[in-house]
C-alpha cells in the first residue's frame, strides 16, 4: 500500500494513475477549475441571449452546430441545455470537486499530520470515476439531440419525457455520486484514524472540521439521489412510472405508461440530497476562510468551539430542511410550518460562524494580501446570500419570489462570490505549499478588485428582477410584459458577466506564470501554525520527514511571551 522512494515510479504512475493524495488533489483541482471555466463559458453564452434575445451572437455564433444556433441565433433547445448543464457542471463538476476533491484531498492529510489518505487506491479510483462522470456530462453536448435540458434539478415528468441527453445526465450523475461516496468514506476514515498523535478533535484546524462534516453530508445525503437517479433511469429506459402519474397527455397524445407514480417523489429525493449539497459547497469554503483569516490576522479565531458546534449543528439540520424548496407544491400548511421553522433555525449557526469570523478580525494585525482580500470579501458576500434566503424561507414571501431571479441571486451570492471567492483565496494561500512558489500579488489584486465589482454587478440586479416577478429559466425574457421594464438590467448583468470573465485573465496568467517564475519560498512563507506548513514545499511523497506530534490548538498566534507571533502545532518547545 505504501510506496518507498527508492524506486522512482514511471510517469503514468506518478502523475496520471497516482495514489498520492497530493497528486490526486491537484488532479481534482485542475479538472475542477477547468470545469468551472467551462461552466462559466456556458453562462456567458446564455447571457447574450438574455441581454439581446433573438439577435445573432457576434463573432462566434456561426461556429455552432445548426441544432444549437441558426445563423448565430440561439435556439431554446440549446438555451435549456446551457442552463441545465451550467448548474450541473458548476455544482457537481466544478465547485465540489475543487473544494472537497482538490482542497480536501491535498490539505486534510497534511493538516492532520498523515502521510496519505487511508485508502490511496480508493482515492485514485474516486478521481477517475469523477473524471468519467465529467467526460460523460461533457460528451452529452455532442448527442444528436444535445445535452440534458430539464434544469439541474431534472424535475419529473419533464425529465422523463426529455431527450436522450437526460439519460446520459443520469448516468453521469451516478458516476459522480459513486465518486463522492468513495471520497467521503476515505475522508472520514482518514480524519478519524490517521490523525497525528496529540491531535485531538478540538485541536483540528477548522478546515478539517468542515471537511469532516461535509464528508458525512456526502456519505448520507447522496445515496437517496442515487436511488432517485436509478428510478428515473428505470422510468426512461424500462418505461416504469415511478414519477409519472396516471392520465398524462403530452402534445395531444395520451401517454402510454402504466401511471400511478408521483412527480413529487423525485423532488423529495432530489432535495434530500440537494439541500445538504448546498452545505457541501459552503462548509469547505468557510473552512478555507477561517484558516486564512487566522493566519493573516495573526490571532486565534474568536469562538472556535462555537464554530465547531455550529458546523456540526448545520450538518444535522441540513437533512431536515429540504422541503423548503417545495413550498409551492401542494404541501400542507402544517408541513410547510415545520420546514419554515427548521429553515429559520438553520440560519442561526450560519450567523454564529459568520459573526465569529468577523469578530476574529477585531484585535488582529491584518495583512491585506490577496488571499486575505478574497477571504474577507467572502464574509459580506456570503452574508448577502444568507440574508436573501430569509424571504425565500418564509412561505408568505416565497409565494411571490419562488422560482424568480431572486432565487438565482440568492444562491449565486452564496456560491459565486461566496464559495468561489473562498476557493480563490485558498488557491492564493496554498499555492506556495503546492508549488514552492508564491503567486504574484499585483496580478492577484488585479484579479480581486474587478472580480468583486463585477460579481456584484451580475448578481445584485437579479434581486430587482426577482422582486419584479421575472421567472427564472426564461429563454426570452421580453415575452412577458412584466419582464420588459427590467430588460436594461439584463443588459447590465450580461456586460458585467463578460467583464467578470475578462477579470479572470489575470488569474490564469498568474497561475501559470507563477508556476514558472513565481518567487521561491521555504516551507512556511505565511508563518502559519497548522501542520501542512511543517512539511516541505512541495511536500514529498509521504509528506513529512517524521510523523509530526501535536502539542496545541490550531491557531496559536501572537501568544504572549513568545518570541515569534506564531506557535506551530507541532513545536514542542517555545518558538
Amino acid at each position: 500500500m505504501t510506496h518507498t522512494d527508492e524506486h522512482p515510479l514511471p510517469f503514468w504512475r506518478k502523475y496520471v494513475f497516482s495514489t498520492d493524495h497530493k497528486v490526486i488533489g491537484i488532479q481534482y483541482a485542475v479538472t475542477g477549475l477547468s470545469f468551472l471555466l467551462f461552466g462559466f463559458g456556458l453562462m456567458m453564452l446564455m447571457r447574450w441571449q438574455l441581454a439581446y434575445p433573438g439577435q445573432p451572437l457576434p463573432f462566434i455564433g456561426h461556429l455552432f452546430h445548426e441544432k444549437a444556433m441558426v445563423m448565430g441565433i440561439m435556439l431554446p433547445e440549446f438555451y435549456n441545455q446551457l442552463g441545465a448543464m451550467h448548474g450541473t457542471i458548476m455544482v457537481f463538476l466544478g465547485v465540489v470537486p475543487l473544494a472537497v476533491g482538490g482542497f480536501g484531498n491535498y490539505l486534510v492529510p497534511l493538516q492532520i499530520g498523515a502521510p496519505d489518505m487511508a485508502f490511496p487506491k480508493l482515492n485514485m479510483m474516486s478521481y477517475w470515476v469523477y473524471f468519467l462522470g465529467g467526460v460523460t456530462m461533457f460528451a452529452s453536448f455532442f448527442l444528436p439531440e444535445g445535452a440534458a435540458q430539464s434544469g439541474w434539478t431534472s424535475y419529473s415528468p419533464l425529465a422523463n419525457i426529455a431527450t436522450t441527453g437526460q439519460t446520459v445526465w443520469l448516468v453521469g450523475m451516478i458516476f459522480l455520486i459513486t465518486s463522492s461516496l468513495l471520497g467521503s468514506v476515505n475522508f472520514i476514515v482518514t480524519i478519524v484514524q490517521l490523525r497525528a498523535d496529540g491531535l485531538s478533535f478540538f485541536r483540528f484546524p477548522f478546515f478539517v472540521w468542515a471537511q469532516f462534516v461535509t464528508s458525512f453530508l456526502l456519505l448520507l445525503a447522496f445515496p437517496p439521489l442515487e436511488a432517485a437517479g436509478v428510478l428515473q433511469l428505470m422510468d426512461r429506459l424500462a418505461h416504469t412510472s415511478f414519477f409519472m402519474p396516471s392520465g398524462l397527455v403530452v402534445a395531444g397524445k395520451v401517454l402510454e405508461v402504466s401511471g400511478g407514480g408521483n412527480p413529487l417523489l423525485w423532488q423529495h429525493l432530489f432535495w434530500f440530497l440537494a439541500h445538504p449539497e448546498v452545505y457541501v459547497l459552503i462548509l469547505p469554503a468557510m473552512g478555507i476562510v477561517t484558516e486564512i483569516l487566522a493566519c493573516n490576522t495573526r490571532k486565534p479565531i474568536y469562538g472556535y468551539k462555537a464554530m465547531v458546534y455550529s458546523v456540526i449543528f448545520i450538518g444535522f439540520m441540513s437533512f431536515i430542511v429540504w422541503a423548503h424548496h417545495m413550498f409551492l407544491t401542494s404541501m400542507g400548511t402544517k408541513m410547510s410550518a415545520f420546514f419554515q421553522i427548521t429553515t429559520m433555525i438553520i440560519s442561526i449557526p450560519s450567523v454564529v460562524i459568520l459573526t465569529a469570523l468577523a469578530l476574529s478580525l477585531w484585535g488582529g494585525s491584518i495583512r491585506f494580501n490577496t488571499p486575505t482580500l478574497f477571504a474577507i470579501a467572502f464574509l459580506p458576500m456570503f452574508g448577502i446570500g444568507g440574508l436573501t434566503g430569509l424571504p425565500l424561507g418564509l412561505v408568505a414571501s416565497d409565494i411571490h419570489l419562488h422560482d424568480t431571479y431572486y432565487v438565482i441571486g440568492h444562491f449565486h451570492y452564496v456560491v459565486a462570490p461566496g464559495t468561489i471567492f473562498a476557493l480563490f483565496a485558498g488557491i492564493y494561500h496554498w499555492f506556495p505549499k503546492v508549488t514552492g512558489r508564491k503567486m504574484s500579488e499585483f496580478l492577484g489584486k488585479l484579479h480581486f478588485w474587478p472580480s468583486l465589482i463585477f460579481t456584484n454587478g451580475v448578481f445584485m440586479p437579479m434581486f430587482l428582477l426577482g422582486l419584479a416577478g421575472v421567472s427564472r429559466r426564461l429563454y426570452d425574457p421580453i415575452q412577458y410584459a412584466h419582464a420588459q421594464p427590467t430588460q436594461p438590467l439584463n443588459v447590465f448583468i450580461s456586460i458585467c458577466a463578460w467583464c467578470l470573465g475578462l477579470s479572470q485573465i489575470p488569474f490564469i496568467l498568474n497561475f501559470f506564470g507563477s508556476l514558472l517564475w513565481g518567487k521561491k519560498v521555504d516551507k512556511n512563507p505565511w508563518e502559519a501554525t497548522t501542520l501542512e506548513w511543517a512539511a516541505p514545499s512541495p511536500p514529498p511523497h509521504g509528506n513529512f520527514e517524521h510523523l509530526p506530534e501535536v502539542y496545541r490548538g490550531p491557531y496559536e498566534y501572537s501568544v504572549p511571551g513568545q518570541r515569534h507571533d506564531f506557535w506551530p502545532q507541532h513545536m514542542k518547545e517555545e518558538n
Partner: protein
Amino acid sequence: MEKYYGWGLPIDISTHGPEIDRLIYVIHIFMALLFIGWFSFLVLALFKFRARPGHRATYKLDHFKTPTYLEVGIALFEALLLVGFSFPLVHKVRNVFPDESQALQVRVVAEQFAWNVHYPGGDGIFGKTDIHKITPANSVGLDEKDPNAHDDIVTINQLHIPVNRPVITRLSSKDVIHSFGIPVMRIKQDVIPGQVIPVWFEAKKTGNFEIACAQLCGLGHYRMRGFFTVETEEEFTKWFVSQPPFVALPLPPVDQSIVPSPPQGEREG
C-alpha cells in the same frame, strides 16, 4: 395608462397581496439594517486592525457579549416573522377558502405551453372530462355526453375574472409540472400533474395583466404567457355570454369506454 411593472415589486391588485408586500418590505428593512450594521463593523475592524509597524495582534480578547444578544435578537425576530407574518398569511391563503357559492369557480388546465381556462358555464357545474377526448378543438377533453358540459366555456390563455369577487381556481396539468403565477396578484402555485390544487384570490382593481409560468416546463416555457383580465361585473358578464359554449362542437361517434375523470373539487392537502 398606469404603470404596472418596474424594477421592483409590480403593482399589487389582490386583497391578500399587501400583506405579502408588507412582509417583503419588513424583511428587506431588517436585512438592510443587519447588513449595514455588520458591514460597518467589518470596515471599522479592517481599518483599525490593519497591519502596520508597531501594531501587534492581541492574543485573547474578552468575551463579546453584544453579538450573543444580537444573535438571540435575530432568532427572536425570525420567530416573529414566522408567527406574526408567515403562518397567519399562509393559513389565510391556503386554508381559508371563500364561500364557494359567492366565488367564481374556474379550472385551469396547464399544458406545454398554454393555460386552458375552463369555466363551468351558466349552470355553475363543470362538465365531466376525459383525457381520451382531448383534441385540438376540445383542449380539456370535455365529455359531450354529460349535459353539464354543454354550456361550459373553455378558453386558451384567457382568464377573465370580475373585480371584487373571490375566484377559486382549480389547477391541474396535462403533462409536466408548471407553475401558475400572477405577479400582480401575488399568487403562485406549482401545478403538479396527477393532482388538483385549488388556489383562491380576489382582485381589487381592473386591468389587463399576465399569467406567467414559473417552473421550467420545456422549450416553450418562456412563452407560456396567459392573459389575465380583471373587469367590472358587467364587463365580465358581457364577455362571458359572448364566449361560445362547448355544445356548439359537432358530436364525435359514441365511445363506450369512458374512463372516469378525477373527482372535481377535491382538496389536496
